[in-house]
C-alpha cells in the first residue's frame, strides 16, 4: 500500500533520525576518521555518557541537554587519558596498531559495560524533559520534539566542529595531523599532543551525543553493541574525517532505513545500512565524500 503521505512522513522522520545518527557519529568521525584510531569503544563511551546524563537528571533534575554539556569537560579529560594510553601502548610501538588497537578497545568496551551494570543494574533507563513525549503538528505530519532536538543539536555540533576544524589553529592542525605528521612537526606542533587534544574533543562531543541518545530512546548497558555498526557505517560512508559528510551520510542512512521500515517491511531495515556500507566500501573504499590520498 503506497501513499504519498506516508512517504513524505518517512522522509521527514528519516532526515531527523539521520541527524541523530550523525550526532552520535561525529566523535568517531574525528577519532577514527581523522586520527585513524580504531575506536570500537566509541559507542560504549556514548552509552556511558547517557548514564552520566541519566544520573544528573534523576538525582539533580538537570535538563538532559544541560547535563550533556556539564559532562563534556569530564569526557574531554577521559578522552585525553584514553588517547595517551592508546598512544603509549600501540602507536608508539609502531606496527600492527590497528589490529591490537581494535582488540584493546573491545576490551575497554566490555569493561565499561560491566561497570555500568555494576553501578546502575541491567534495567533500561530514560530521562524526563519537557520536550520528551510531545510532538509538533505540521499539517498532517506530527514530529516528535525529541527528534527536533536531535536535529538542532546535530546541526549545531556539525557547524561548530566544522568551524573549529577550519578556523582555529588547533582545528587545522587536527586535520593536518592525519595527512602528514612530520610536516606538522615542522610547523612547530607536536603531533601527539594534537592527536591527544583531538581525541579529547571527540570524546567531549560524545557527552552531548550521549544526552541525545537517552533523549531519543531509553538506554541499557549493552546498547553500545547496536551502535558499533551504525556509527562506523556513517563515518566510512561519509569519507573519513568530513564533518559535513558525516551528517549527510547519516541522513542518507536515516532516510533509507525509515523508508524501508514504513514502505517495505521493517524486518529488513538493519540490512539496509550495512548493504549500503558494503557497497560504498567495495566501490569507493575512501567513502562517498572521501578524502583522497
Amino acid at each position, binding site marked *: 500500500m503506497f501513499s504519498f503521505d506516508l512517504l513524505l512522513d*518517512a522522509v521527514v522522520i528519516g532526515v531527523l533520525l539521520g541527524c541523530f545518527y550523525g550526532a552520535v557519529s561525529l566523535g568517531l568521525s574525528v577519532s577514527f576518521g581523522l586520527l585513524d584510531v580504531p575506536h570500537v569503544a566509541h559507542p560504549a563511551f556514548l552509552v556511558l555518557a547517557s548514564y552520566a546524563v541519566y544520573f544528573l537528571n534523576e538525582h539533580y533534575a538537570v535538563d538532559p541537554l544541560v547535563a550533556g554539556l556539564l559532562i563534556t569537560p569530564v569526557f574531554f579529560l577521559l578522552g585525553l587519558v584514553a588517547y595517551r594510553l592508546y598512544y603509549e601502548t600501540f602507536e608508539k610501538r609502531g606496527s600492527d596498531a590497528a589490529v591490537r588497537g581494535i582488540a584493546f578497545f573491545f576490551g575497554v568496551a566490555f569493561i565499561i559495560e560491566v561497570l555500568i551494570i555494576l553501578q546502575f543494574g541491567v534495567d533500561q533507563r530514560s530521562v524526563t524533559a519537557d520536550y520528551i513525549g510531545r510532538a509538533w503538528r505540521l499539517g498532517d505530519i506530527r514530529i516528535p520534539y525529541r527528534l527536533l532536538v536531535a536535529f538542532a543539536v546535530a546541526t549545531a555540533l556539525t557547524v561548530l566542529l566544522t568551524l573549529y576544524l577550519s578556523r582555529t589553529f588547533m582545528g587545522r592542525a587536527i586535520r593536518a595531523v592525519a595527512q602528514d605528521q612530520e610536516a606538522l612537526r615542522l610547523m612547530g606542533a607536536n603531533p601527539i599532543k594534537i592527536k591527544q587534544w583531538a581525541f579529547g574533543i571527540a570524546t567531549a562531543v560524545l557527552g552531548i551525543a550521549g544526552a541525545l541518545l537517552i533523549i531519543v530512546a531509553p538506554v541499557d548497558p549493552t546498547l553500545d553493541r547496536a551502535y558499533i555498526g551504525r556509527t562506523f557505517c556513517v563515518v566510512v560512508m561519509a569519507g573519513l574525517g568530513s564533518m559535513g559528510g558525516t551528517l549527510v551520510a547519516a541522513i542518507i542512512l536515516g532516510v533509507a532505513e525509515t523508508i524501508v521500515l*514504513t514502505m517495505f517491511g*521493517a524486518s529488513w531495515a538493519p540490512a539496509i545500512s550495512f548493504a549500503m556500507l558494503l557497497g560504498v566500501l567495495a566501490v569507493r573504499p575512501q567513502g562517498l565524500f572521501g578524502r583522497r590520498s
Partner: protein
Amino acid sequence: MSKKVSKPGSISRRRLLATAGAALAATPLGAKLVRAQQTPIRIGMSMPQTGGLAGGGKASLLGIEIWRDDVNAKGGLLGGRKIELVVYDDKSSASETPAIYSKLIDVDKVDLLFAPYATVPTAPIMPMVKQRGLLLMGNFSFQVNSKVGHDMWFNNAPWGPADSWATSFLDIGQRAGGKSMALLAADQEFAQNLAKTAREVAAKRNLPMVFDQAYPPNTVEFSSIIRALKAAKPDIVYIASYPPDSAGILRAVNEIGIGDNVKVFGGGMVGLQFGAVMENMGSLLNGVVNYNTWLPEKSMYFEGTKEFFDKYTKRAVEAKIDPLGYYLAPFGYASGQLIAQAINAVGSLEQKALAKYLRENTHKTIVGPIAFSPDGERKETAVLQAQFRGVVDKNMEQFRSSGKQVILFPENLKSGELIAPFEAARK
C-alpha cells in the same frame, strides 16, 4: 549471589547419601539419621545474569531465593533437609545452557532442576532432560515443550494453551466493537510466537488483518512505523514487543497519535511489567491494555502473597533489581512451592513420582491455584489482561496500589471494565 558448593571427592558420597536419605527419610529410622538429614536438597539451574534477559533472570532468581530461605527457616523438607541452590549464569544465550545443565546433572549431581528464565536458554536443554528422564520446572518459556513432548516438564508461567493469550485480547477488542486488527511484532523469538498465534486466532474469527509487520531488534525510532500503522485504520492494535522497544512504541504513539477508531491497544508488550520501565513511561501508559501475570489487585492475593512481597521489596533494593517484581518473582517462589508440595506429598525426591504428583493435582501457591495439562503448561490460562489507568509520571510507589492496572481478564479475577476507545482511556 549463590555459589556452587562442591568439594572434590565428595560428589559420589553426597549422591549416595541423597538417595539413601530419600529412601530412609520416610521411615522412623531414617528420621534419626542425622547425617542424612543434614544433606541439603540441591536444586540446580542456570539463570541469565548478564545479557538481554538479565533483568528478568535476576528478579526470578530472587523469588526462588526467598522461597529457599522461607523453607530453610522452617527447618527444610523431608524431615530437616535444607534447600541449597546451585546457580550459574547462562549470559542469556542458548549456547551456554547445555554445558551448564550437564555440569549440574553429571558433576554437581543436583537433586532437582529448574529451568532458566525465558525460552531461548531453555530450548536447548529440553531434549536433554527428556532423554535423561529428569523433571524440569520451567520458568516463563513459551511453548518449548510442544515439539519435544517431555512428560516431566512443568511451566510455572500462567500462559496456558498457546493461543489463549491472543484469544483473550481479541475477545476484549471485539467486545468493544473492534472489526479489524493490526499486528506489530518484534522480530525475535517470543514476540514472533505471539504474533503467530494472533494471526491464527484472527483468521479463525475472520477478523481482517489490516497491518502486519515485524520490526527488527534495536530499532531506534518508531514514529514512522506508528504512522504507517495509523494509516491502516485498525480497531484493535496488538503489539508484541520487547522492553527497549515497548517504551519507544508508546512514546511514538503518544507523539504521533493512533487515531480515534482504535478500541484497544497493547496485548503482548514485554517490559510494561517492570517497575523501572513503568516508572519511566508514567502517564504514557494510560489506556494501554496489556498482559500481565500478577498485579496488586484484591483478587490476586492468596495465602503468603503479601508476606512474599514484603520480603521481596526489602531485598530487591539491595540487589539493584526491579523494586516491584510482580512479573516474575512470585512465580519463582511458586516454582519452589510446587516442588515442595510434591516432595512433601511423595516423601522422596524420586523424579517420576514427583512429576506424577504435579501432573495429577491442583497446587496452592502465592499466585493462586495451579493445575497442569499433559503438556506441562497450565490447564487454564491465567494471563491477565489489564488496562493502565490514572498513572502519573515519575512515581514508582503508585503501582503498588490497586486500581492502576485494572484487570479485564480472566473473569474470575476481573477488577473493572474496559474503557474504550483507546484515545478516551488515555485521558
